[in-house]
């Protein structure tokens, strides 16, 4: 059962690296990460914070871009090129195909994030000690940063996998442009999910129907902000592995929901 999935995944992974625009995004991300120390001078006295914000922000942002643009092309490309008929004619079920496509994309994203992460660690290791030396009172926060950054990248990986899952599902429902827009909207709205919780509060004066709808949206939408632990890094707060596992678990659970929806939709679709 796993072999067809892995074959589709491997083919997807190799194909992804041949896409020039994805390589372009990765290159641009590494450039931004590499120059994060230049931007650090914009915030005198808070250079370390700025490096973290730009470096990790770039990893999350460009990772998300890669996930959206790659995820929304994974299945439609196969349909347009009609290669999907060949694949599905072989003993590969639609569920295996969707999951294999996602897995290949997820592996591509993992490698992309690892490369961005390495670039960030190099910049951080070169420039951060210099900034930290200027502020001895930050020594404690600085010492905790190295391990916290790794944790932040791991959580970013789960976040971007979830975005990829949404992009793959969106591409089975809508045209390419629409699925890109849909995924972006879900991502940005998911970043502000607490907004819906606040708006659904009876004290805010929204009508009962609106309250129910907003409350439901809050419950159904993935909460992307939970994958962001930059605040902990900036404050030198220890992020326990228990919390990390819970957050990753939540990401994985949402991913299962998203891929299940993808399968249910794609299984009925004419290709």
């Amino acid at each position, binding site marked *: 059962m796993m072999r067809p999935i892995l074959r589709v995944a491997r083919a997807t992974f190799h194909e992804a690296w041949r896409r020039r625009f994805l390589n372009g995004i990765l290159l641009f991300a590494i450039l931004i990460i590499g120059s994060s120390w230049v*931007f650090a001078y*914009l*915030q*005198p*006295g*808070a250079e370390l*914070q*700025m490096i973290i*914000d*730009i470096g990790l*922000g770039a990893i*999350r*942002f460009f990772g998300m871009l890669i996930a959206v643009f790659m995820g929304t092309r994974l299945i439609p490309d196969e349909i347009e090129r009609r290669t999907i008929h060949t694949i599905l004619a072989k003993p590969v079920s639609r569920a295996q195909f969707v999951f294999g496509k996602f897995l290949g994309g997820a592996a591509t994203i993992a490698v992309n994030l690892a490369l961005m992460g390495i670039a960030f660690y190099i910049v951080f290791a070169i420039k951060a000690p210099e900034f930290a030396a200027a502020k*001895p*009172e930050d020594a404690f926060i600085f010492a905790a940063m190295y391990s916290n950054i790794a944790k932040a990248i791991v959580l970013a990986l789960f976040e971007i996998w979830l975005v990829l899952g949404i992009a793959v599902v969106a591409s089975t429902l809508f045209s390419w442009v629409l699925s890109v827009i849909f995924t972006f909207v879900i991502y*940005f709205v998911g*970043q*502000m999910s*607490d*907004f819906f919780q*606040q*708006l659904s509060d009876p004290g805010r004066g929204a009508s009962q129907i609106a309250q129910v709808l907003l409350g439901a949206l809050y*419950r*159904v939408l993935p*909460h992307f*902000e*939970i994958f*962001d*632990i930059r*605040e*902990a890094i*900036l*404050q030198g*707060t220890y*992020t*326990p592995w*228990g*919390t990390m596992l*819970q*957050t990753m*678990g*939540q990401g994985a*659970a*949402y991913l*299962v*929901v998203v891929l*299940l*929806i993808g*399968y*249910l939709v794609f*299984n*009925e679709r004419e290709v």
Partner: protein
Amino acid sequence: MKPYKIIGWLAVIALIVAIQPLDRSVEYNRLILGLQQPTPWFQIAARGAAGDTELAVTGVTGVIVGAALGGFREVAATMLWMKTHEYWHKGEALQAKSLWLMRLVTLLDPHWLEPWRVTAWHLAYNLYVETDDPELRAKYLQMGVDCLREGVSWNPDRYDLYMELGWTYFDKVEDFEEANKWFKAAMRYPHPEYVDRLVGHAYERMPDVPRALDAYDYCLKRDPQDHTAKGATLTIRERYLWPWYLAEQGRYDEALEAINEYLLAKPSSSLGLHVKGHIAERAGKLRLAYDTWKLAGDISALDFLAQNKAVELAHELGIETEDTAQYLYMQKMGKDLKVTIPGRDRMSR
């Protein structure tokens, strides 16, 4: 609908329901551990809505919103801060739109200290002098102080904003007790040595001679070459310690005579007048105390403590007077400016 589809969609719903307890647990842990984003978006939006919505969006361009939403809060904060500099150079730094932008920067990136400092300075210092209305001035003072207090709550393990808050109380409100509370809080964290001396300066101006000497003693023990502390100790011992000692003994007339002797040589010494006003007040010579504080307040337009004391005594003596901004502020804060008579055991010298 095919049975597998029904089962599939039911599984989707069941999974979403099953995720909820995990979601609540994650949210709770993030709250407890301080992992949440500094100021949630709904709070920022609510602040904007509470003020002038038109002003709230001025300067907040699409790029800035995009940066903030894309996860680059600090970059967005920096861009907004640069925008406030632009307003500054146009001479619009004190306009509401500029101040709102500064506030927005503190909301977006509350761990960046400079915006707190500058925003509070604009409020307590620059906006303060833009008006002659004491009520408005008191309001701006409070806004500046509140801004720094909020900044402290975000950065409790750094000396900077404790020190700024203490300095605002010291220099602008002239509530030296409150100033020392914050200077001492700043001293709990790595800090430059001038903060230690400020404690002594505040006690000196209060005046509380024994405590001022204690504070300078501390500075000298830490650095025997601290010339400022050395000079201040000599001045206090030479000029104010003896009158203070006499007052502590309840020998008020002798104490007043002693401080008058010094004031003969330096009639406009604000610290000398403070000590005299303090002794006169303790002696129950309220008219003399009023005249002394009034004189000190008239000599220096920035001697808010003397002006406040004069206003308070004027109220007590039934003398017509105009309330100062600092007095109104202190009244609002429920501060009693009256001299508290310390126990004899405090006089250790």
